[in-house]
């Protein structure tokens, strides 16, 4: 018994990363960032607006949060749809009450299906980023490149057309990517994407079609991760966000501005028994030294300070 030789060979074993997507660096040693009015934290509230098709194909896997039962899985279909009919309006009220600026990551298919909701968002003039076509249209390793090229182009064209916004941000469904996704995003006018979770601040990501910025949309602080995946209580969710806010604020006193990124789903926090928990979070966070801004505003402020690098 033995493994093939390649298992004891380490072709990438040298300084830096084991790939050329980005440079190795440590956050604590990066240039200190100053947010407007010298705020310690930039608050990025990211709201995925998602369509989970009932006839889910599950290629190459069933999207987390999607259908799990034999067809027709009405329970999951309708519970996710709840977010776009009911939950989102509770979230919007909370955002307005606490005067925070959300960013919406929208499936292009949902933009087509819910013109009313799209109008509401357009009227608010909040930033929309592209969340792919729908939650069952995954980008994945080994995917046919023509298929993915069409998927990226169509979802962006649709969303740009419907929102009248020059969409520059991207969040892949399930944050999943193929080996070509970054190239396709760069060649379709995307400036930043939010799939990689290896930093608490933006960093530059290389593609063969020019650089992207990776924006740090924490998965560990996401409502779905904490409440649905980990089965933590809603009270613990509040506690965790407040603890993170305190910690990052403290870190910001010595290392420069930080980002508190909250990814929150209308079908999760928009439930009647959870919305007060979001309000509690917003009440706490907005009482701190924060700058509430859209993802693009945060990134632009960050990149404007990179020239000296």
């Amino acid at each position, binding site marked *: *018994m*033995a*493994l*093939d030789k*390649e*298992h*004891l060979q*380490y072709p*990438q*074993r*040298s*300084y*830096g*990363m*084991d*790939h050329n997507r980005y440079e*190795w*660096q*440590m*956050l*604590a040693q990066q240039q200190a960032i100053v947010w407007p009015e010298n705020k310690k934290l930039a608050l990025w509230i990211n709201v995925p607006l998602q369509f989970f098709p009932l006839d889910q194909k599950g290629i*190459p*896997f069933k999207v987390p949060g999607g259908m799990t039962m034999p067809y027709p899985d009405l329970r999951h279909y309708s519970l996710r749809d709840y977010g776009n009919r009911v939950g989102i309006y509770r979230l919007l009220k909370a955002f307005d009450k606490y005067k925070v600026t959300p960013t919406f990551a929208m499936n292009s298919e949902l933009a087509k299906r819910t013109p009313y909701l799209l109008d509401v968002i357009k009227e608010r003039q909040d930033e929309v980023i592209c969340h792919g076509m729908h939650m069952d249209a995954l980008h*994945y*390793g*080994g995917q046919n490149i023509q298929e993915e090229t069409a998927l990226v182009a169509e979802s962006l064209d649709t969303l740009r057309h419907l929102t009248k916004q020059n969409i520059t941000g991207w969040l892949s469904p399930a*944050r*999943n*990517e*193929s*080996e070509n996704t970054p190239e396709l995003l760069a060649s379709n006018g995307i400036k930043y994407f939010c*799939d*990689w*979770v*290896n*930093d*608490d601040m933006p960093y530059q990501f290389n593609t063969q079609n020019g650089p992207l910025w990776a924006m740090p949309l*924490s*998965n*560990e*602080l996401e409502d779905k991760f904490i409440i649905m*995946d*980990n*089965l*933590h*209580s809603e009270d*613990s969710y509040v*506690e*965790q*966000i407040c*603890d*993170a*806010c*305190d*910690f*990052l604020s403290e*870190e910001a006193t010595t290392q420069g501005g930080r980002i508190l990124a909250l990814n929150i789903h209308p079908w999760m926090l928009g439930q009647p028994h959870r919305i007060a928990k979001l309000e509690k979070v917003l009440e706490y966070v907005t009482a701190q030294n924060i700058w509430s801004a859209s993802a693009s505003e945060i990134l632009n402020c960050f990149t404007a300070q990179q020239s000296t690098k």
Partner: protein
Amino acid sequence: MKSDPEYYDYWPYHNRPKIRWPDGKKMAFWVAPNIEFYELNPPVNPNRKAWPQPNPANQGYSIRDYGNRVGHIRQMELLDKYGIRGSISLSTALCEHHPEIIQMCKERNWEFFSHGIYNTRYTYGMSEQQEREMIKDSMETIFKHTGQKCAGYLAPALSHSERTLDLFAEVGTELFGNEGGIYTCDLFHDDQPTPIHLRSKKKFVSVPYSLEMNDTIAFAVNKMEPRRYGKMLQENFDRLYQEADESGTIMCIPTHNYQVSCPHRMKAYEQALDYITSHDDVWVTTGREIAEYYIQHYYDSSVADIKQKQIKFGGR
């Protein structure tokens, strides 16, 4: 395959020879940050996949990279604050990939022990010669980059063969005599050190490392809330501190910078460290120091006690 790994004998947790740590301290406490390198696209081991998704597994890969980019310095500053030297369970290729991290740990006189070369290369399916080569490479890498004679082992991703501990001890002797390859963190059967049977008969111990207190087990497997983790650490400490009146105990917190160093988990972790280090009768130490002290002072009496109980009661 064997029904019993045959590394140790049954040895009841009472009436053992009484342990006292240096300066008469009753309890030893150590923190073992795992500093790991996961490869984005490693060769696929036939027995275990590194990632659930086809390449690129950007989510699993990137959160682990977070540990090195963001988390490491956070935990290091916290351990500095409480006067704790880390005992690093090291993916030794990190010496080549991220020497800055190694340098910071060296400056603090932290211990480095082997956790294999990459945490995405599993022992499963290796021949004895291959496993020996991998272990030797890892120990030589630590020596080359830090000057330390690697004393301890935690198999990469806790992937073992039947020979893992034998090979580690033998390579340690070959490279560094009795200073190398003297303890393992791979076994979870006891709250005190245990002499381990090896084919070489070398004096070798299992040092309690604790899966239960491991942040990845707590957060990623057991889905624990951060504050509950902090409370659990304190409760674990309280009982071991109390029991140490009878005979010296050990508490270990194994950590990962991509888990405990996330912003929402640091407060609870700090509270636990603050609580534990506020107690006087605690020897804050490293894995190697525990193993060396035990081998020097208690190994022989432990072996004699185990043997005597076996003769009296039988069993194994």
